[in-house]
Protein backbone atom coordinates (compact mmCIF):
# COMPACT_ATOMS: atom_id res chain seq x y z
CA UNK A 1 0.00 0.00 0.00
CA UNK A 2 2.67 2.49 0.94
CA UNK A 3 5.12 1.25 -1.63
CA UNK A 4 4.47 4.43 -3.55
CA UNK A 5 7.56 6.20 -2.30
CA UNK A 6 8.65 9.58 -3.54
CA UNK A 7 11.47 8.14 -5.64
CA UNK A 8 9.39 6.12 -8.10
CA UNK A 9 6.96 8.99 -8.37
CA UNK A 10 9.74 11.37 -9.29
CA UNK A 11 11.11 8.78 -11.65
CA UNK A 12 7.75 8.46 -13.33
CA UNK A 13 7.34 12.21 -13.56
CA UNK A 14 10.78 12.47 -15.08
CA UNK A 15 9.88 9.93 -17.72
CA UNK A 16 6.63 11.69 -18.52
CA UNK A 17 8.44 14.98 -18.80
CA UNK A 18 11.00 13.39 -21.06
CA UNK A 19 8.44 11.75 -23.30
CA UNK A 20 6.29 14.83 -23.56
CA UNK A 21 9.10 17.27 -24.23
CA UNK A 22 10.70 14.85 -26.64
CA UNK A 23 7.54 14.42 -28.63
CA UNK A 24 6.53 18.04 -28.48
CA UNK A 25 9.76 19.89 -29.09
CA UNK A 26 9.60 21.31 -32.56
CA UNK A 27 13.14 20.39 -33.50
CA UNK A 28 12.66 16.77 -32.60
CA UNK A 29 9.17 16.50 -33.90
CA UNK A 30 9.06 13.50 -36.08
CA UNK A 31 5.83 14.46 -37.70
CA UNK A 32 3.38 11.84 -36.71
CA UNK A 33 0.87 11.55 -39.44
CA UNK A 34 -2.65 10.31 -39.01
CA UNK A 35 -2.05 7.01 -40.71
CA UNK A 36 0.96 5.81 -38.71
CA UNK A 37 -0.74 7.04 -35.55
CA UNK A 38 -3.82 5.01 -36.35
CA UNK A 39 -1.78 1.95 -37.19
CA UNK A 40 0.19 2.28 -33.97
CA UNK A 41 -2.98 2.54 -31.92
CA UNK A 42 -4.68 -0.33 -33.71
CA UNK A 43 -1.64 -2.56 -33.19
CA UNK A 44 -1.56 -1.74 -29.48
CA UNK A 45 -5.26 -2.36 -29.06
CA UNK A 46 -4.96 -5.62 -30.96
CA UNK A 47 -2.12 -6.74 -28.69
CA UNK A 48 -4.13 -5.87 -25.63
CA UNK A 49 -7.21 -7.63 -26.95
CA UNK A 50 -5.30 -10.77 -27.77
CA UNK A 51 -3.30 -10.78 -24.54
CA UNK A 52 -6.01 -12.36 -22.33
CA UNK A 53 -6.72 -15.00 -24.95
CA UNK A 54 -3.04 -15.89 -25.20
CA UNK A 55 -2.79 -15.90 -21.45
CA UNK A 56 -5.62 -18.34 -21.01
CA UNK A 57 -4.51 -20.54 -23.89
CA UNK A 58 -0.86 -20.82 -22.87
CA UNK A 59 -0.12 -23.85 -20.73
CA UNK A 60 0.80 -22.70 -17.30
CA UNK A 61 1.65 -23.97 -13.89
CA UNK A 62 0.04 -21.66 -11.50
CA UNK A 63 -0.24 -22.42 -7.89
CA UNK A 64 -3.48 -21.74 -6.24
CA UNK A 65 -3.93 -20.09 -2.94
CA UNK A 66 -5.44 -22.62 -0.58
CA UNK A 67 -9.10 -22.58 -0.05
CA UNK A 68 -10.93 -23.95 2.94
CA UNK A 69 -11.45 -27.29 1.33
CA UNK A 70 -7.90 -27.50 0.11
CA UNK A 71 -6.36 -26.90 3.48
CA UNK A 72 -8.84 -29.22 5.12
CA UNK A 73 -7.82 -31.95 2.78
CA UNK A 74 -4.14 -31.37 3.43
CA UNK A 75 -4.75 -31.40 7.14
CA UNK A 76 -6.53 -34.70 6.89
CA UNK A 77 -3.65 -36.10 4.95
CA UNK A 78 -1.26 -34.90 7.64
CA UNK A 79 -3.37 -36.61 10.24
CA UNK A 80 -3.40 -39.79 8.22
CA UNK A 81 0.36 -39.61 7.88
CA UNK A 82 0.83 -39.29 11.59
CA UNK A 83 -1.48 -42.10 12.36
CA UNK A 84 0.10 -44.34 9.79
CA UNK A 85 3.54 -43.63 11.21
CA UNK A 86 2.52 -44.49 14.70
CA UNK A 87 0.76 -47.60 13.60
CA UNK A 88 3.77 -48.51 11.56
CA UNK A 89 1.78 -48.87 8.40
CA UNK A 90 4.14 -46.98 6.21
CA UNK A 91 3.43 -48.73 2.95
CA UNK A 92 0.49 -46.49 2.12
CA UNK A 93 2.28 -43.22 2.79
CA UNK A 94 5.74 -43.83 1.49
CA UNK A 95 4.97 -42.85 -2.00
CA UNK A 96 3.65 -39.45 -1.13
CA UNK A 97 5.56 -38.40 1.96
CA UNK A 98 8.85 -40.26 2.11
CA UNK A 99 11.67 -37.93 1.20
CA UNK A 100 14.75 -39.77 2.37
CA UNK A 101 15.77 -43.24 3.50
CA UNK A 102 18.95 -44.70 4.81
CA UNK A 103 20.37 -47.69 6.68
CA UNK A 104 23.41 -47.95 8.87
CA UNK A 105 25.21 -50.79 10.42
CA UNK A 106 25.08 -50.37 14.16
CA UNK A 107 27.02 -52.53 16.54
CA UNK A 108 26.73 -50.59 19.79
CA UNK A 109 24.32 -51.33 22.56
CA UNK A 110 23.24 -47.77 23.12
CA UNK A 111 22.29 -44.92 20.85
CA UNK A 112 22.34 -41.24 21.77
CA UNK A 113 20.03 -38.97 19.83
CA UNK A 114 20.96 -35.32 19.85
CA UNK A 115 19.70 -32.05 18.43
CA UNK A 116 22.40 -30.14 16.61
CA UNK A 117 20.85 -26.74 16.82
CA UNK A 118 18.13 -26.92 19.43
CA UNK A 119 17.37 -23.21 19.63
CA UNK A 120 15.97 -23.21 16.15
CA UNK A 121 12.97 -25.10 17.27
CA UNK A 122 11.84 -28.60 16.82
CA UNK A 123 11.16 -29.36 13.29
CA UNK A 124 11.94 -33.00 13.31
CA UNK A 125 9.85 -35.51 15.21
CA UNK A 126 11.64 -38.74 15.78
CA UNK A 127 9.63 -41.89 16.02
CA UNK A 128 11.53 -44.87 17.33
CA UNK A 129 10.49 -48.36 16.42
CA UNK A 130 12.10 -51.48 17.59
CA UNK A 131 12.88 -54.14 15.14
CA UNK A 132 12.39 -57.76 15.98
CA UNK A 133 15.02 -58.92 13.64
CA UNK A 134 18.34 -59.57 15.26
CA UNK A 135 20.35 -57.69 12.77
CA UNK A 136 22.80 -54.94 13.35
CA UNK A 137 21.18 -52.22 11.31
CA UNK A 138 19.40 -48.96 11.92
CA UNK A 139 17.09 -47.68 9.22
CA UNK A 140 15.92 -44.15 9.04
CA UNK A 141 13.03 -42.93 7.01
CA UNK A 142 12.46 -39.19 6.67
CA UNK A 143 8.96 -38.01 6.01
CA UNK A 144 7.65 -34.55 5.50
CA UNK A 145 4.07 -33.74 5.97
CA UNK A 146 2.07 -31.29 3.83
CA UNK A 147 3.69 -27.98 4.44
CA UNK A 148 1.63 -24.83 4.22
CA UNK A 149 2.99 -21.37 4.53
CA UNK A 150 1.10 -18.20 3.79
CA UNK A 151 -1.80 -20.17 2.44
CA UNK A 152 0.39 -21.84 -0.10
CA UNK A 153 1.05 -25.53 -0.22
CA UNK A 154 4.76 -25.96 -0.63
CA UNK A 155 5.33 -29.53 -1.71
CA UNK A 156 9.04 -29.72 -2.34
CA UNK A 157 12.18 -27.73 -2.79
CA UNK A 158 12.64 -27.29 0.94
CA UNK A 159 15.90 -28.12 2.61
CA UNK A 160 15.97 -31.41 4.47
CA UNK A 161 17.20 -31.96 7.99
CA UNK A 162 20.54 -33.66 8.05
CA UNK A 163 21.73 -36.53 10.17
CA UNK A 164 25.22 -36.34 11.51
CA UNK A 165 26.91 -39.26 13.30
CA UNK A 166 29.16 -37.79 15.96
CA UNK A 167 30.57 -41.15 16.75
CA UNK A 168 29.49 -44.72 16.47
CA UNK A 169 26.69 -44.28 18.92
CA UNK A 170 25.72 -40.61 18.77
CA UNK A 171 23.32 -39.44 16.12
CA UNK A 172 22.65 -35.73 15.79
CA UNK A 173 19.79 -34.23 13.84
CA UNK A 174 20.39 -30.90 12.30
CA UNK A 175 17.45 -28.66 11.55
CA UNK A 176 17.20 -27.62 7.92
CA UNK A 177 18.08 -24.08 6.99
CA UNK A 178 15.35 -21.88 5.63
CA UNK A 179 14.91 -22.08 1.90
CA UNK A 180 14.48 -18.91 -0.10
CA UNK A 181 11.50 -19.04 -2.39
CA UNK A 182 10.05 -16.28 -4.49
CA UNK A 183 6.54 -16.11 -5.72
CA UNK A 184 4.96 -13.96 -8.35
CA UNK A 185 1.37 -13.09 -8.56
CA UNK A 186 -0.44 -10.91 -11.06
CA UNK A 187 -3.84 -9.69 -10.18
CA UNK A 188 -6.60 -7.64 -11.70
CA UNK A 189 -7.13 -6.19 -8.28
CA UNK A 190 -5.86 -2.70 -7.74
CA UNK A 191 -4.83 -2.90 -4.11
CA UNK A 192 -3.46 -6.28 -3.52
CA UNK A 193 -1.88 -6.14 -0.10
CA UNK A 194 -0.35 -9.56 -0.29
CA UNK A 195 -0.57 -12.26 -2.81
CA UNK A 196 -3.53 -13.58 -0.92
CA UNK A 197 -7.10 -12.48 -1.15
CA UNK A 198 -7.58 -9.97 1.57
CA UNK A 199 -11.12 -11.11 1.96
CA UNK A 200 -10.15 -14.74 2.36
CA UNK A 201 -7.99 -14.13 5.43
CA UNK A 202 -10.95 -14.96 7.51
CA UNK A 203 -11.99 -17.81 5.32
CA UNK A 204 -8.85 -19.85 5.06
CA UNK A 205 -8.00 -20.49 8.64
CA UNK A 206 -4.85 -22.45 8.68
CA UNK A 207 -5.02 -24.02 12.05
CA UNK A 208 -1.94 -25.11 13.82
CA UNK A 209 -3.13 -28.60 13.35
CA UNK A 210 -0.74 -30.15 15.81
CA UNK A 211 2.40 -29.41 17.66
CA UNK A 212 4.45 -31.61 15.45
CA UNK A 213 7.16 -30.18 13.34
CA UNK A 214 6.95 -30.72 9.63
CA UNK A 215 9.40 -33.64 9.52
CA UNK A 216 9.11 -37.12 10.85
CA UNK A 217 12.17 -39.31 11.20
CA UNK A 218 11.15 -42.93 11.57
CA UNK A 219 14.04 -44.82 13.13
CA UNK A 220 13.99 -48.57 13.21
CA UNK A 221 16.37 -49.80 15.87
CA UNK A 222 17.21 -53.32 16.87
CA UNK A 223 15.32 -54.16 20.02
CA UNK A 224 18.28 -54.64 22.29
CA UNK A 225 19.62 -51.18 21.65
CA UNK A 226 18.93 -48.64 24.32
CA UNK A 227 17.84 -45.13 23.22
CA UNK A 228 19.03 -42.06 25.03
CA UNK A 229 18.15 -38.59 24.08
CA UNK A 230 18.73 -34.92 24.74
CA UNK A 231 16.02 -32.59 25.54
CA UNK A 232 14.92 -30.81 22.44
CA UNK A 233 14.19 -33.85 20.48
CA UNK A 234 10.71 -35.03 20.32
CA UNK A 235 10.75 -38.72 20.39
CA UNK A 236 7.86 -41.00 20.19
CA UNK A 237 8.02 -44.61 20.96
Amino acid sequence: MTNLGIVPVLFILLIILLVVTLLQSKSYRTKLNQRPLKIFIIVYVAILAVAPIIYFILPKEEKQVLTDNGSEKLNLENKALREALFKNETASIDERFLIDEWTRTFKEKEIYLKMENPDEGEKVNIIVQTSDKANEQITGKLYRKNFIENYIYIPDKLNKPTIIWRNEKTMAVKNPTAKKLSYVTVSDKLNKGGFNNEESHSVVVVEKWDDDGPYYLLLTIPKDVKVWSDEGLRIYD
Partner: protein
Amino acid sequence: MMTVIQCENLEKKFRKKKALQNITFQIEGEKITGLIGRNGTGKTTLLRILAGMTKQTSGTVTILDKTPFNNLFVSANSILINDQMQFPGSFKLQDILNFAPDFYEKWDAELATRLLQYFRLSPQSYHSDLSKGMKNTFNFIFGLATRCTVTMFDEPINGMDEAVRKDVYRALLKDYLAYPRTIIISSHFLDEMEHLLEDILLLDEGKVALHKSLDELREHAIGLQGPADVVKKWATGFEILHEKQLAGNQLYTVLKAQDCTFNEKQLLQEGISFIPVSAGDLCLYLTNTRVGGIDDVFND
Protein backbone atom coordinates in the same frame (compact mmCIF):
# COMPACT_ATOMS: atom_id res chain seq x y z
CA MET B 1 -32.22 42.67 -51.17
CA MET B 2 -31.68 40.77 -48.01
CA THR B 3 -29.79 42.30 -45.13
CA VAL B 4 -26.96 39.92 -44.42
CA ILE B 5 -25.04 41.75 -41.74
CA GLN B 6 -26.41 44.37 -39.44
CA CYS B 7 -24.67 46.13 -36.60
CA GLU B 8 -26.18 48.71 -34.36
CA ASN B 9 -24.28 50.74 -31.79
CA LEU B 10 -21.84 47.94 -31.46
CA GLU B 11 -19.30 48.44 -28.74
CA LYS B 12 -16.43 46.27 -27.59
CA LYS B 13 -14.24 46.93 -24.61
CA PHE B 14 -11.14 45.07 -23.58
CA ARG B 15 -10.86 45.84 -19.90
CA LYS B 16 -11.21 49.63 -19.99
CA LYS B 17 -10.01 50.16 -23.50
CA LYS B 18 -12.62 50.61 -26.18
CA ALA B 19 -11.71 48.60 -29.23
CA LEU B 20 -14.92 49.35 -31.06
CA GLN B 21 -17.54 51.96 -30.41
CA ASN B 22 -20.72 53.11 -31.98
CA ILE B 23 -20.41 50.78 -34.91
CA THR B 24 -23.56 50.95 -37.01
CA PHE B 25 -23.74 49.64 -40.53
CA GLN B 26 -25.44 47.05 -42.61
CA ILE B 27 -24.35 44.97 -45.51
CA GLU B 28 -26.98 43.87 -47.94
CA GLY B 29 -26.93 41.18 -50.56
CA GLU B 30 -24.05 39.44 -52.17
CA LYS B 31 -21.41 42.10 -52.14
CA ILE B 32 -17.70 42.21 -51.72
CA THR B 33 -16.98 44.73 -49.03
CA GLY B 34 -13.55 45.96 -48.12
CA LEU B 35 -12.99 46.52 -44.43
CA ILE B 36 -10.30 49.15 -44.49
CA GLY B 37 -8.51 50.75 -41.61
CA ARG B 38 -5.09 51.26 -40.20
CA ASN B 39 -3.49 48.73 -37.92
CA GLY B 40 -5.18 48.51 -34.55
CA THR B 41 -8.44 50.19 -35.50
CA GLY B 42 -10.50 47.15 -34.59
CA LYS B 43 -10.88 45.40 -37.93
CA THR B 44 -9.97 42.04 -36.43
CA THR B 45 -12.18 42.56 -33.41
CA LEU B 46 -15.14 43.48 -35.59
CA LEU B 47 -14.64 40.40 -37.76
CA ARG B 48 -14.31 38.18 -34.70
CA ILE B 49 -17.60 39.51 -33.39
CA LEU B 50 -19.24 38.96 -36.76
CA ALA B 51 -17.91 35.40 -36.83
CA GLY B 52 -19.30 34.73 -33.35
CA MET B 53 -15.91 34.19 -31.75
CA THR B 54 -16.21 37.11 -29.39
CA LYS B 55 -19.17 38.72 -27.77
CA GLN B 56 -19.73 42.42 -28.06
CA THR B 57 -19.86 44.51 -24.91
CA SER B 58 -23.03 46.26 -25.97
CA GLY B 59 -25.13 46.93 -29.01
CA THR B 60 -26.62 44.44 -31.40
CA VAL B 61 -25.17 42.48 -34.23
CA THR B 62 -27.04 40.10 -36.49
CA ILE B 63 -25.84 37.90 -39.29
CA LEU B 64 -28.56 36.38 -41.43
CA ASP B 65 -31.00 37.58 -38.78
CA LYS B 66 -29.25 35.70 -35.98
CA THR B 67 -26.93 36.82 -33.23
CA PRO B 68 -23.64 35.22 -34.18
CA PHE B 69 -22.20 34.51 -30.74
CA ASN B 70 -22.60 30.84 -29.91
CA ASN B 71 -24.93 30.34 -32.84
CA LEU B 72 -24.63 27.17 -34.87
CA PHE B 73 -26.56 28.48 -37.84
CA VAL B 74 -24.28 31.46 -38.20
CA SER B 75 -21.22 29.29 -37.73
CA ALA B 76 -22.38 26.90 -40.43
CA ASN B 77 -23.02 29.71 -42.88
CA SER B 78 -20.03 31.90 -42.22
CA ILE B 79 -16.31 31.58 -41.99
CA LEU B 80 -13.54 33.86 -40.85
CA ILE B 81 -10.13 33.29 -42.35
CA ASN B 82 -7.23 34.81 -40.47
CA ASP B 83 -3.61 33.93 -39.87
CA GLN B 84 -4.35 32.63 -36.39
CA MET B 85 -6.16 29.64 -37.78
CA GLN B 86 -4.60 26.52 -36.44
CA PHE B 87 -5.02 22.92 -37.32
CA PRO B 88 -3.85 19.90 -35.35
CA GLY B 89 -0.13 19.29 -35.74
CA SER B 90 -0.59 15.80 -37.05
CA PHE B 91 -2.83 16.96 -39.88
CA LYS B 92 -1.54 17.17 -43.39
CA LEU B 93 -3.22 19.66 -45.67
CA GLN B 94 -5.04 16.75 -47.25
CA ASP B 95 -6.39 15.66 -43.85
CA ILE B 96 -7.76 19.15 -43.28
CA LEU B 97 -9.42 19.13 -46.67
CA ASN B 98 -10.87 15.70 -45.96
CA PHE B 99 -12.53 16.93 -42.79
CA ALA B 100 -14.00 20.07 -44.31
CA PRO B 101 -17.02 18.48 -46.06
CA ASP B 102 -18.18 17.12 -42.70
CA PHE B 103 -18.68 20.70 -41.64
CA TYR B 104 -19.38 22.66 -44.79
CA GLU B 105 -22.14 21.39 -47.01
CA LYS B 106 -21.14 23.54 -49.93
CA TRP B 107 -17.48 22.54 -49.75
CA ASP B 108 -15.91 22.33 -53.19
CA ALA B 109 -13.21 19.70 -52.90
CA GLU B 110 -12.20 19.98 -56.51
CA LEU B 111 -11.65 23.70 -56.30
CA ALA B 112 -9.55 23.25 -53.17
CA THR B 113 -7.42 20.56 -54.75
CA ARG B 114 -6.90 22.53 -57.93
CA LEU B 115 -5.98 25.72 -56.13
CA LEU B 116 -3.59 23.79 -53.90
CA GLN B 117 -1.95 22.41 -56.98
CA TYR B 118 -1.80 25.78 -58.69
CA PHE B 119 -0.20 27.48 -55.69
CA ARG B 120 2.23 24.59 -55.35
CA LEU B 121 1.09 23.56 -51.91
CA SER B 122 1.66 19.87 -51.43
CA PRO B 123 -1.35 18.15 -49.87
CA GLN B 124 1.18 16.03 -48.00
CA SER B 125 2.79 18.92 -46.16
CA TYR B 126 1.85 19.95 -42.65
CA HIS B 127 0.02 23.16 -41.95
CA SER B 128 2.38 24.12 -39.15
CA ASP B 129 5.39 23.70 -41.45
CA LEU B 130 4.18 26.22 -44.01
CA SER B 131 5.74 29.65 -44.23
CA LYS B 132 3.55 32.60 -43.34
CA GLY B 133 2.66 33.36 -46.92
CA MET B 134 1.95 29.74 -47.76
CA LYS B 135 -0.11 29.33 -44.63
CA ASN B 136 -2.20 32.33 -45.59
CA THR B 137 -2.53 31.01 -49.11
CA PHE B 138 -3.81 27.73 -47.77
CA ASN B 139 -6.18 29.47 -45.38
CA PHE B 140 -7.47 31.54 -48.25
CA ILE B 141 -8.08 28.44 -50.36
CA PHE B 142 -9.83 26.84 -47.43
CA GLY B 143 -12.06 29.86 -46.96
CA LEU B 144 -12.90 30.06 -50.64
CA ALA B 145 -13.72 26.37 -50.92
CA THR B 146 -16.17 26.45 -48.02
CA ARG B 147 -18.44 28.64 -50.17
CA CYS B 148 -19.95 30.03 -47.00
CA THR B 149 -22.73 32.54 -47.49
CA VAL B 150 -20.74 34.98 -45.40
CA THR B 151 -17.04 34.68 -46.05
CA MET B 152 -14.68 36.93 -44.17
CA PHE B 153 -10.97 37.31 -44.77
CA ASP B 154 -8.84 39.10 -42.21
CA GLU B 155 -5.75 40.44 -43.95
CA PRO B 156 -5.64 37.44 -46.27
CA ILE B 157 -2.65 38.52 -48.32
CA ASN B 158 -0.16 38.97 -45.49
CA GLY B 159 3.17 37.47 -46.40
CA MET B 160 2.20 36.52 -49.92
CA ASP B 161 4.43 37.61 -52.75
CA GLU B 162 3.03 39.86 -55.42
CA ALA B 163 2.35 37.20 -58.02
CA VAL B 164 0.43 35.12 -55.51
CA ARG B 165 -1.54 38.14 -54.33
CA LYS B 166 -2.70 38.89 -57.86
CA ASP B 167 -3.69 35.27 -58.41
CA VAL B 168 -5.47 35.14 -55.09
CA TYR B 169 -7.55 38.20 -55.93
CA ARG B 170 -8.34 36.83 -59.35
CA ALA B 171 -9.38 33.48 -57.85
CA LEU B 172 -11.59 35.27 -55.37
CA LEU B 173 -13.28 37.27 -58.10
CA LYS B 174 -13.83 34.30 -60.38
CA ASP B 175 -15.29 32.19 -57.62
CA TYR B 176 -17.44 35.10 -56.54
CA LEU B 177 -18.76 35.53 -60.08
CA ALA B 178 -19.63 31.85 -60.20
CA TYR B 179 -21.03 31.68 -56.68
CA PRO B 180 -22.03 35.16 -55.52
CA ARG B 181 -21.95 35.54 -51.77
CA THR B 182 -21.29 38.13 -49.10
CA ILE B 183 -17.57 38.61 -48.79
CA ILE B 184 -15.68 40.90 -46.45
CA ILE B 185 -11.97 41.42 -46.89
CA SER B 186 -10.09 43.40 -44.34
CA SER B 187 -6.90 45.15 -45.20
CA HIS B 188 -4.92 48.18 -44.19
CA PHE B 189 -3.99 48.51 -47.80
CA LEU B 190 -6.70 49.25 -50.30
CA ASP B 191 -4.90 49.86 -53.57
CA GLU B 192 -4.30 46.31 -54.65
CA MET B 193 -7.78 45.04 -54.14
CA GLU B 194 -9.74 48.16 -54.91
CA HIS B 195 -11.02 46.85 -58.23
CA LEU B 196 -12.52 43.83 -56.48
CA LEU B 197 -14.64 45.78 -54.09
CA GLU B 198 -18.11 47.08 -54.38
CA ASP B 199 -18.31 48.74 -50.99
CA ILE B 200 -15.85 50.09 -48.54
CA LEU B 201 -16.26 50.11 -44.80
CA LEU B 202 -13.61 52.37 -43.39
CA LEU B 203 -12.78 52.06 -39.73
CA ASP B 204 -10.93 54.68 -37.77
CA GLU B 205 -10.06 54.26 -34.12
CA GLY B 206 -12.87 51.82 -33.50
CA LYS B 207 -15.49 53.83 -35.31
CA VAL B 208 -16.99 53.64 -38.75
CA ALA B 209 -15.42 56.50 -40.65
CA LEU B 210 -17.23 55.80 -43.86
CA HIS B 211 -19.39 53.16 -45.46
CA LYS B 212 -19.91 53.79 -49.15
CA SER B 213 -19.71 52.15 -52.48
CA LEU B 214 -16.38 52.57 -54.13
CA ASP B 215 -17.87 54.81 -56.80
CA GLU B 216 -19.40 57.09 -54.25
CA LEU B 217 -16.09 57.22 -52.50
CA ARG B 218 -14.56 58.77 -55.61
CA GLU B 219 -17.04 61.58 -55.44
CA HIS B 220 -16.39 62.04 -51.78
CA ALA B 221 -13.38 64.24 -52.28
CA ILE B 222 -11.60 66.34 -54.82
CA GLY B 223 -7.99 67.36 -55.03
CA LEU B 224 -6.87 70.81 -56.06
CA GLN B 225 -3.39 71.81 -56.93
CA GLY B 226 -2.07 75.21 -57.73
CA PRO B 227 -0.53 78.37 -56.26
CA ALA B 228 -0.97 78.25 -52.50
CA ASP B 229 -2.92 81.50 -52.09
CA VAL B 230 -5.34 80.72 -54.89
CA VAL B 231 -5.99 77.20 -53.64
CA LYS B 232 -6.56 78.50 -50.14
CA LYS B 233 -9.04 81.02 -51.39
CA TRP B 234 -11.06 78.36 -53.14
CA ALA B 235 -10.85 75.97 -50.27
CA THR B 236 -12.38 78.21 -47.67
CA GLY B 237 -15.67 76.89 -46.42
CA PHE B 238 -14.83 73.28 -47.24
CA GLU B 239 -13.58 70.57 -44.98
CA ILE B 240 -9.94 70.03 -45.74
CA LEU B 241 -8.95 66.39 -45.59
CA HIS B 242 -5.39 66.71 -46.62
CA GLU B 243 -2.92 69.41 -47.40
CA LYS B 244 0.50 69.18 -48.83
CA GLN B 245 3.01 71.90 -49.53
CA LEU B 246 4.72 71.35 -52.85
CA ALA B 247 7.75 72.89 -54.41
CA GLY B 248 7.46 76.40 -55.80
CA ASN B 249 4.77 77.68 -53.48
CA GLN B 250 2.33 75.17 -54.84
CA LEU B 251 -0.28 73.59 -52.62
CA TYR B 252 -2.14 70.36 -52.97
CA THR B 253 -5.41 70.21 -51.04
CA VAL B 254 -7.97 67.48 -50.77
CA LEU B 255 -11.44 68.77 -49.98
CA LYS B 256 -14.50 66.94 -48.86
CA ALA B 257 -16.76 67.37 -51.86
CA GLN B 258 -20.20 67.90 -50.45
CA ASP B 259 -22.33 70.09 -52.68
CA CYS B 260 -19.21 71.29 -54.30
CA THR B 261 -19.94 72.91 -57.59
CA PHE B 262 -16.74 74.42 -58.76
CA ASN B 263 -16.57 76.03 -62.05
CA GLU B 264 -13.90 73.98 -63.66
CA LYS B 265 -13.19 76.47 -66.36
CA GLN B 266 -12.65 79.26 -63.93
CA LEU B 267 -10.40 77.15 -61.77
CA LEU B 268 -8.33 76.15 -64.72
CA GLN B 269 -7.97 79.73 -65.77
CA GLU B 270 -6.67 80.63 -62.32
CA GLY B 271 -4.00 77.96 -62.67
CA ILE B 272 -5.55 75.37 -60.44
CA SER B 273 -5.75 71.85 -61.71
CA PHE B 274 -7.93 69.04 -60.53
CA ILE B 275 -5.93 66.13 -59.24
CA PRO B 276 -8.06 63.05 -58.83
CA VAL B 277 -7.75 61.35 -55.48
CA SER B 278 -7.35 57.60 -55.53
CA ALA B 279 -9.53 55.60 -53.17
CA GLY B 280 -6.52 54.30 -51.29
CA ASP B 281 -5.12 57.75 -50.68
CA LEU B 282 -8.50 59.04 -49.66
CA CYS B 283 -8.84 56.34 -47.06
CA LEU B 284 -5.45 57.32 -45.71
CA TYR B 285 -6.43 60.98 -45.56
CA LEU B 286 -9.70 60.17 -43.84
CA THR B 287 -7.95 58.23 -41.11
CA ASN B 288 -5.07 60.62 -40.56
CA THR B 289 -5.22 62.61 -37.37
CA ARG B 290 -3.24 65.43 -38.90
CA VAL B 291 -4.28 67.09 -42.09
CA GLY B 292 -0.78 67.37 -43.36
CA GLY B 293 0.25 63.83 -42.49
CA ILE B 294 3.74 63.10 -41.21
CA ASP B 295 5.03 66.45 -42.48
CA ASP B 296 2.84 68.23 -39.95
CA VAL B 297 4.79 66.63 -37.14
CA PHE B 298 7.96 68.25 -38.31
CA ASN B 299 6.36 71.57 -39.18
CA ASP B 300 5.15 72.20 -35.64
